[in-house]
């Protein structure tokens, strides 16, 4: 497997230096940009596998950069946000970013997210696997059957739709908007409560202890995530 090409768009030299010196050099290669414009230019000039985008850029705001990147590339984007930028974070995710990390973060955390993002990117082009498995949860899309520890779990159509939507992007956070759009269609975008209710049902059916979820994780204020590994 060749090294992953990362593009880091961040105006803080310290953050860039930290990544430059701590990324395992064999597995990762790093491109750097200190402004949004330069980041966009670099992204179009050189192929990158994952883009790490800081929200607080001096020239363009991160949401705008995401939008412009998404106009022509499907490269996974991971948002690096500070606390207090929750609105922007969700906006960036809605605009097409794949995941986010709140600063300060640790290196293992970052690497895990990068791996998830890269894997999905490589899968995206291919046909999706008919079967999705994580832990003892198994979703057989072809047969429309969900089993937990080998036993079949009966799901309503909505619950099944919700679960498959999360499974398709397992490991990534999906915002409320994205989930609502996918499960209920574009007209129900304001009914976040539906989502909370059905996630509650789904948890009740899939989790042993809903307060310590193994699969279905709440990201308060952002959305939900199905643990991917």
């Amino acid at each position, binding site marked *: 497997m060749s090294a992953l090409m990362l593009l880091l768009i961040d105006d803080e030299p310290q953050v860039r230096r930290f990544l430059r010196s701590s990324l395992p050099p064999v597995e990762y290669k790093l491109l750097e940009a200190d402004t949004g414009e330069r980041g966009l230019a670099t992204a179009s000039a050189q192929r990158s596998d994952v883009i790490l985008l800081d929200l607080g850029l001096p020239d363009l705001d991160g949401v705008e950069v995401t939008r412009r990147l998404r106009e022509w590339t499907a490269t996974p984007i991971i948002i690096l946000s500070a606390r207090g930028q929750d609105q922007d974070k969700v906006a960036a995710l809605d605009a097409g970013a794949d995941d986010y990390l709140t600063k300060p973060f640790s290196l293992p955390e970052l690497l895990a997210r990068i791996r998830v993002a890269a894997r999905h990117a490589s899968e995206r082009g291919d046909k999706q696997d008919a079967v999705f498995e994580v832990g003892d949860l198994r979703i057989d899309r072809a047969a429309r059957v969900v089993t937990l520890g080998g036993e079949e779990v009966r799901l309503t*159509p909505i619950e099944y739709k919700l679960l498959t939507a999360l499974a398709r992007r397992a490991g990534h956070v999906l915002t409320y908007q994205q989930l609502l759009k996918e499960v209920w269609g574009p007209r129900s975008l304001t009914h976040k409560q539906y989502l909370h209710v059905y996630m*509650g049902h789904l*948890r009740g059916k899939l989790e042993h202890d*809903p307060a310590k979820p193994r699969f279905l994780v709440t990201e308060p204020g952002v959305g939900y995530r199905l643990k991917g590994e």
Partner: protein
Amino acid sequence: MSQARADPDELLHHALEDERRRSRGKLVIFFGAAPGVGKTYAMLEAARAERDLRRDVVLGIVETHGRYETGALVIGLELLPRRRVEHRGVTIDEFDLDAALARKPGLILVDELAHTNAPGSRHAKRWQDVEELRDAGIDVYSTLNVQHVESLNDVVAQVTGVVVRETVPDRVLEEATEVRLIDLPPDELLERMTDGKVYLPEKAERAVENFFRKGNLIALRELALRSTAERVDAQMRTYRTAHGITRVWATTERVLVCVGPSPSSARLLRAARRMAASLHAPCIAAYVETPAALRMSDADRRRLAENLRLAELLGFEAVTLQGERAAEETVRYARSHNVTKIVLGKPTHSRWRNLVSTSFLEDIVRSSGEIDVYVISGDEGPARAAGPRRRPRTRPLAYAAAVGASIASTGVAWFFFGRRQLADVVMVYLLGIILVSLRFGYGPSICAAVVSVLLLDFFFVPPYLSFSVTDFQHVVMFAVMFVVAVVISNLTQRVRVQAEAARQREQRTGTLYSMSRELAATRATRNLAHVALDHVHDVFDARVTLALEGRDGRLENIAAGEAAYVPDEKEQGVIEWTWSRDKPAGLGTDTLPSARGLYLPLRGAQGRVGVLGVIPADPRRLQDNEQRALLDVFAQQIATALERARLGEEAQQAHVEVEAERLRSSLLSSVSHDLRTPLSVITGSASALVESDAVLDPAARRELARTIEEEAQRLNRLVRNLLDMTRLSAGAVHITKEWQPIEGVIGAALGRLEDALDGRTVTTNVPADLPLVPIDGVLVEQLLINLLENAIKYTPAGSPIDVSARHEPGAMILEVADRGPGVPPDAAKKIFEKFYRLPREGQGGGAGLGLAICSAIAEAHGGRIWVDARDEGGSVFRVELPITGTPPPPAPEEAP
């Protein structure tokens, strides 16, 4: 009374006066005896001289009356455009006050100070425009003829036979910075007149010709010269006083004039004013409201109000006294206010009345003691109601009842006593008369007396059934009976009137009291306004509004309650004027009288508070002096209450600021300490790694790196808490509640602390059937994280933590329980305060913000947080989150 030193009050008065004069614009009056003496000419010349000195001179309004010489002087001076006013189809050019204020020249020329403005102007009189110009700091030149001076008005009328209606209060003249007398001998003036150099309005030509007789002109010239001389004299005195020249101390004279509703009171007032002016004495106009005055006719009431207004215009302090006996009350007031001279009018009633009761004049003279009494032809005195008295409405019925009562007495007397016991019969009649007088008042009782005497004569006195009387003894009996009846009627009448007066006073006091009491029980400004408006509405039958000074110093309209109205643009203008000038305006005043409402400035002890607006259902109502006075008292009460509320709010604000300041300082000290500690550890460890890389073995290196990581995390927590606290207390975080299952939030919080919780047993107890709760997921997650972090930080490593949620009626209870050392009972409340930390050794605590944030979040949800001790040791933090409102409808199961 020789005082050796200057009275400090007086000196203070001078100082204040000086101060006021300095900031006000100067007023120079070009003063003359008659039209045509050359006032306008002199004024223009003076203005040109000023302009040559590079002053900013503007012609506000100048009438050249087509005179060539005067017209020539106008050339080259800036002319202010005039305001065109349409009035009854006639276009009138008026002085444009607003334009002048906007232009704000250094000096403005405003001719004819006594001019009456066209209806619809802001002020009724031009001298008021000039006052406003002066208040704005603009110097004014103006002209005035002696016949327009208020206190000389009647003298001029007497001398010349021409009544001048346009007058200027003496005060204006006295307050002028300078009065320049423009003098022209009468012969020369007459010569100019024949030369056609004096402007004569065509309509009034005859009257004016009368006016310009030589004798008149001499008299007028004398008046002008004299009043100028008096003014110079006054200046001299002021100068002496101000410079402490004590030899000729102005005697501290004080003049009190008794006014009543009589038309001649006006003359009395002017005479008293002249006298006071020559004595340089302050003067008071007093009206005594006796019980008898309550019977005053409407016409009298109106005249009395006019007289009191005139008194104020003349510069009197107008007071209304209340008392049983006018003379007594007047003298008492005079004594208590150091009055040295009382002025009153000559009695006008006939002498025989003195036989019945002593006159007001006599009473005053007898009781006045050392106070001088001046009697001037004109008015008899206060409270003597001229004109028809107010008639009771049930008049015809009352008289019928009086006749009926007499007839009934006749029947009773006939039945019981017959014709023999005449004395008893008379008693029965008297009883009837007393009853009538008690029930129906004076007139009917006199009527009953007359009818009774006639009936007595007809039925009981021989010759019977005839009105003729043979015995002289019987005539005396009739007379005695009649007099007794009248006296009794008088007495009962007086009792009735006093009771009525007491009732009215009671009512006035009562309404005022009820408002005061309610105001005293109200705190917030807005509620106060509501209470005040409701009361004014009830008492005065008026629609009301209130404008209060807002935080930025601008007026805010508060129209609270049903009776309130929102002023339109025009009324708003009156409000603004009242506010900026601190004077009443609008309906019934001299300023903007065409407004629909009357506007009173609200003044508290420390300054102005706002403006009260009143639109009475019946506009005449507020012309009644008594009602107006009552309204003033209401306004005063409201102002005081509003000021109290405002001071209260300011004190509250100050308290909050002090608290904020205290927090800021403890934040600074806490932050500087808590930020520095981890920073210094990080810096130290990192520098050790950089500098001594070669000598460090891998274990030591790892140890240093771990230290850096731990301290950085601590720093991160601290900064996060500080940010959260700041945002929460600055209100920057608005909470967005969504109905959601609580277990998701608990799961998220536990997930976030996965690493920190390593090695701990965390038990969760979250029943599956919990309802949804309306919460802000992000904030409640933060709350749980803070509680869990505290549990991790303050309890022994490896000890278990229990997290649970349960449903109670109307609320969700979250619990985070630990097996740590517990919280001392006396600190159970304090730990939720900002920057409070338990005095524990060793623990690298935070800034004491974590629990304060929890508390703020719980409160933002309308809930609360508290800590309890666990029976088996350790503590449990409980959070109550209310479940209010309706949960969302169940979602459609089938995808649309």
